[in-house]
């Protein structure tokens, strides 16, 4: 049975437990590494507030995929899943409630700016404040500083979960604004979701930051019950052959982890997501798969255990196994090192990476961190002839 969602107090560790029932009426910021339970805390805190009579309340997330993912867990609680919204839906609903016509631009960044500007104008014009009793933000690092200020004005209290290392969308860092918006900050140290082998890769990806605290030191993952593994990156002549290898692995993984979501993450749409999606939908895994289309959303459905989406769409989501396809296209992304970190840390137990072009050096090096150390090359091997593909 999947252990994604916490259903009883015993599922929480010592640092997570007290956060759920912190005093109502104050604002909190919860920071912590991937797998420290931030999303679960957002959901349980909202359920706690809801059951305590705070019903004018919304959970706001940045991506549709995360909204669907939380909703898939939210069905198990009293909190109505309809109150889980993307920031886009949150702004549109608010503008319409006050009679502001909404004409969305097509471009993602333009639309984002438009919605923030229109909402800000509305707030100023109507002198709006405390429209909501509470707003809970997951993946707070994805929100712009202006959005944090706007949302904290619109709500009596806010509860924000965030991890600046997972910031992969454009825009200024909102960490200071989040701190200013809350009464108290809680730092989660431990995580229990991500296997140690995967932590090694994540830690190696972040070793360019002196403030980074290694995840491996604070892992409470049960490595005996479910040993983790990072496969050596595999290079294939084409994306089609990458897809064939991934399909083959997924067949075995579906049998091994029958109740778990399995992720295939793609850095870009055109070059990676579309051909991989086509190959998976043409295989006998089609019925077990859900693939991101042209929107940013993937629906999480009980019978569809294989999820194919972009790394950006996967933010906040977790999978038992992750295949990163077309990994050389990480270089095309803005904040690509953070994107690699986000992709890697979506995996709980198994990570594999496929590519056709050359991997970014930092990523290739990081993937080596989970392998046994290599002895220095022998001098005759240094001259002529390829030793590896």
């Amino acid at each position: 049975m999947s252990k994604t969602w916490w259903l009883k107090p015993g599922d929480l560790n010592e640092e997570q437990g007290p956060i759920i029932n912190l005093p109502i009426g104050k604002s909190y910021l919860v920071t912590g590494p991937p797998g420290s339970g931030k999303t679960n805390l957002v959901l349980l805190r909202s359920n706690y507030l809801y059951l305590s009579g705070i019903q004018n309340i919304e959970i706001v997330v940045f991506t549709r995929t995360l909204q669907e993912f939380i909703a898939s867990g939210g069905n198990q609680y009293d909190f109505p899943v309809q109150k889980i919204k993307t920031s886009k839906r949150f702004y549109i609903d608010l503008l319409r409630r006050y009679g502001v016509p909404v004409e969305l631009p097509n471009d993602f960044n333009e639309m984002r700016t438009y919605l923030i500007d229109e909402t800000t104008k509305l707030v100023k014009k109507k002198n709006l404040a405390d429209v909501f009793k509470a707003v809970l933000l997951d993946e707070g690092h994805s929100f712009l500083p202006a959005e944090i200020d706007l949302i904290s004005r619109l709500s009596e209290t806010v509860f924000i979960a965030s991890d600046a290392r997972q910031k992969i969308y454009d825009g200024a860092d909102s960490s200071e604004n989040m701190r200013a918006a809350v009464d108290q900050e809680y730092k989660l140290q431990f995580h229990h979701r991500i296997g140690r082998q995967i932590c090694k890769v994540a830690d190696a990806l972040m070793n360019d930051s002196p403030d980074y605290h290694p995840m491996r030191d604070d892992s409470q993952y049960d490595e005996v019950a479910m040993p983790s593994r990072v496969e050596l990156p595999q290079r294939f002549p084409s994306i089609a052959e990458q897809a064939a290898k991934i399909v083959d692995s997924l067949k075995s993984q579906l049998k091994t982890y029958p109740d778990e979501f399995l992720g295939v993450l793609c850095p870009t749409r055109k070059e990676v997501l579309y051909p991989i999606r086509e190959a998976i939908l043409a295989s006998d895994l089609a019925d077990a798969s859900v693939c991101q289309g042209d929107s940013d959303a993937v629906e999480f459905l009980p019978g569809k255990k294989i999820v194919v989406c972009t790394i950006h769409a996967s933010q906040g989501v977790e999978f038992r196994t992750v295949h990163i396809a077309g990994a050389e296209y990480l270089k095309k992304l803005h904040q690509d090192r953070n994107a690699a970190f986000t992709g890697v840390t979506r995996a709980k137990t198994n990570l594999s990476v496929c590519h056709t072009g050359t991997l970014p050096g930092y990523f290739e090096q990081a993937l080596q961190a989970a392998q046994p150390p290599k002895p220095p090359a022998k001098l005759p091997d240094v001259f002529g002839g390829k030793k590896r593909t």
Partner: protein
Amino acid sequence: MWSKKVNRKELAEVLNSGRITSADGLYQSESGLSALGGWDEIELLWKDNPVSDSRFPSVIVVDRTEQRDLLAWLNTYSPSTRPVTAYSHIADRQTASVFLEGTSAPRLGRFEDACLGLIVGETATYVGGKKDLRSVTHTACLSTLSFAIARSAALGLDAKMISEIEDRWSRSRVLIGASPLPVTSEPLQAAWSVIRHLAKGEFKLPLGEPVSSLVLEACAQVWSHGEISDSEWQSLTKDLPELAPLQDELKGPREGRLSLFERAVSGARRSQVDKNRNAEFLCAYLASSISPGTLDHLHVLQPYLYTFPNLLIWYGLCAGLSSRDTLGTTLNGLVRRVKRELVREEHFLQNPSCDIAFIELEMMSGSARDWTTELRVATPGHLIVELLPCINSHYRAPRLEGANELASGELAPALNELSALLDRAHDSISKVRRAAGIVTPRPSEFQKEKKRKAGR
């Protein structure tokens, strides 16, 4: 407890009226039973005073040799309470004493998960190949021999009574015309022999046991350490030498463990050791090691059931033996539901919860009348048979599908209503299509021709 001695005529009066008419001879006792003198002496038991609280007797105590005759007599003279064992337990004095003394709540202690694993394994064996094993129902689990044995053990019954349960379970299947089972009872007896020996702490087997010492020792290790030792592994892989050096893969990632199981089962098929019990056990152990202490991988075994029909029984046992309170969380709560029934508190002095008891089923099926028309069952096509007091088994009985006419009578109007609703929905769709200008597909020439022919 309240007690009263009666003769057959008086008993028929009590059953026909649903109450005792006179308190003469009624007395309250702690638990003692009266000595029964002759063939016409019967003792009735109630939990509470039957005068103030009119009830059928919970128990009819009568000599074992007289039970069948009494039931035949009651079927004749008290037809409104047929079958009488749906209302009252029938027991001889010795059996009644055992159940009256066993007052503690049913429990299986350290072997609870092993029993539950075996119950699910047996159920999956019966449905295997027919449907998705993960959709096994808890009612199907309650119909297994393992459930009946585990329930008996939970109630603290001795080996002789458990043996009687096994016998009655099989005979009930024959009496109700249940379809034949895909496996013999031998592997089940072997698996239960393992639990029995582990519970007694016996690891040396006397001759004639249905299980090998090697399998018993392996199960003991799985139970105590969660895995089997190096030397045990070497012994078990004797017929599959290619597996001998691979034990460490069981400590690696789960995908590797799945691959090891698939290699083992293919190897066993190739080398034709499929008739070898130890090889079958080894394959089941490997499958249970993919995710120890859970039943998450029933589906992985399904393709191999034709060659290894007992795989799921051993898989269930290994999963239960290696469980550290983890089994209950698997299969979407199925195991918890089965556990609820397994340890359900049901006092002997409560009226039964079955459709009929075995002894009466046996008596009725031996008569010339069609007994199936006289039974009122909770679910059409299903019969709950009490094998011994407080131990029920659920049977699928196709002969009883028409037994509950009331249910099908209620169904007909509902179906008519549903049909009318569908017609209305169809009309609405046509109207919307017309309004939206969507052309309704015309029937093809072939379909028209078919309609014409049908109309002729």
